[in-house]
């Protein structure tokens, strides 16, 4: 059944050296069941021909006079040119299922909803890092985020694909550049302004995920720092929202305690007491496997999900390292990450 929500939509695609992917991204927007009324590609001073490719496909290409320095900067640059009721953002390396926008828009039937995001599935699931990320998404978006949505507080309206009402977005000041995760910052700002955010699992996007350790490390480093940065920026607002506060609190506890357990406690116990403590690295495998296999089966990807689960535990250890490092740098040494480093 098609839901027609009145209003026009502008799609903003921030792009920096995305010649390899931008054509697929623009085409996936044009081939939507409910296509956006305007597609703006912000060519943030690419030197690989990204802009001409997007323009050739019919997108409006804006090119700032100098590189804006971050995804948020590029998106804000385009926001000034938006005249539609809704704004959607889509990463330049992300494609959408044909019905993604159509499935997302009914979330705005509730006038208090200012943002809505969808399910994310890596476009390519080949390397160990892509497989780890695939399992992470199936687990976190197939269970955690849906529970968050039921209680009205999705933790993040994902930056790779989200739709916003233009008014509240402008009221929030656009995408903040004070942290390294503009999506988390904006989501929490919208909550603080009294708006709602929805997660629509039926609307699926397919980003290209980091396929090697170097790219994955850059992305996880940015996300880890951004988590602590946003917690610091928003903590006064968070305490007025009990559910969100609890979700962030347990997230922080995992970031710290689980990292210590994985990186310090388990190896020490394995050496000093018994090697059996190494089982601790995979002791939650059954808990992880249940939602991953259920969601994977629902998507017709049971075998891929099952065979990818081991990669999740590898990615988790890398994640733990970067989270602990980010904690030390952001909280104890007061050396915040300030340079936006692209890692897909």
């Amino acid at each position, binding site marked *: 059944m098609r839901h027609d929500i009145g209003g026009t939509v502008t799609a903003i695609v921030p792009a920096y050296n995305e010649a390899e992917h931008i054509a697929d991204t623009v085409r996936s927007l044009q081939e939507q069941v409910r296509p956006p009324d305007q597609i703006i590609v912000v060519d943030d*001073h690419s030197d690989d021909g990204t802009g001409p490719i997007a323009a050739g496909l019919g997108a409006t290409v*804006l090119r700032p006079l100098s590189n804006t320095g971050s995804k948020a900067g590029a998106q804000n640059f385009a926001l000034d040119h938006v005249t539609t009721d809704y704004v959607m953002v889509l990463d330049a390396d992300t494609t959408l299922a044909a019905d993604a926008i159509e499935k997302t828009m009914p979330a705005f039937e509730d006038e208090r909803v200012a943002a809505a995001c969808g399910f994310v599935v890596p476009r390519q699931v080949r390397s160990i890092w892509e497989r780890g990320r695939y399992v992470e998404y199936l687990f976190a978006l197939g269970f955690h985020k849906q529970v968050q949505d039921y209680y009205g507080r999705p933790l993040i309206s994902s930056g790779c694909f989200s739709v916003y009402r233009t008014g509240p977005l402008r009221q929030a000041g656009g995408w903040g550049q004070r942290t390294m995760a503009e999506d988390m910052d904006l989501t929490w700002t919208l909550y603080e302004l009294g708006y709602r955010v929805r997660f629509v699992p039926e609307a699926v996007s397919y980003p290209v995920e980091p396929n090697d350790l170097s790219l994955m490390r850059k992305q996880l480093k940015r996300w880890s720092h951004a988590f602590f940065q946003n917690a610091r920026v928003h903590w006064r607002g968070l305490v007025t929202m009990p559910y969100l*506060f609890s979700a962030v609190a347990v997230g922080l506890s995992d970031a710290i305690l689980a990292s210590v357990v994985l990186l310090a406690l388990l190896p020490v116990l394995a050496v000093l007491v018994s090697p059996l403590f190494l089982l601790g690295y995979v002791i939650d495998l059954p808990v992880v496997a249940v939602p991953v296999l259920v969601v994977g089966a629902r998507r017709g990807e049971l075998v891929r999900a099952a065979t990818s689960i081991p990669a999740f535990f590898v990615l988790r250890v890398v994640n733990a390292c970067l989270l602990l490092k980010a904690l030390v740098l952001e909280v104890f040494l007061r050396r915040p990450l300030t340079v936006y480093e692209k890692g897909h």
Partner: protein
Amino acid sequence: MGAGIPGTGMATLFYLVCAVLMPLRELVLTLQGRSSWARWRLVCRHLLLALAMGGSAVATFWFLPRAVLPPDLTIGGVSSLAVTVVLFVAYLVVANLVAVLVPRSVQLPTPKLPTPKLPATQLPATQLPATQLPATQLAGTQLLPTQLPTARAADPVGVDLTGVDLTGVDLTGVRRDVDGPALPLATIDLTDVPADSLESAV
């Protein structure tokens, strides 16, 4: 997207508890006339998922001590599982106590004014329907199919940059398709674009 370590520690326990509490909340909403069958279906689905996850965790903790671990895996004589649950509850209580004790005055971030209109280079869009542009072509050069996973190399219609000075443009990985057919190409009209603003582009 996010940060954290899904699958470990308190976060998963937190969401399991939240899922188990869903039916109670939905019951209240039903009594208030604010529920629906669709919502109940969602609640039941997540409850079943949570019960399956919880069941698998209990089975793990039941099986492991009997199969591989020493039977006395206790902390101060108390089961380690019980210690975990107590720690989890205590943590949530303390966290929410902090929330109660902290002054409620929310200091909102100062909304910044809309970005001032910056001069931009706007490349005019071509008039060809999108469906006629399944692949991308750069003036006699063709992107390798491997670089465009879904590009259809068989019908390459694209962008003609003939006459555009591509000096300085990094075309690494792009090869000239010398054997390709003559193509009806869409054109990017750069006539009205100030030359100086394109300096670093092409």
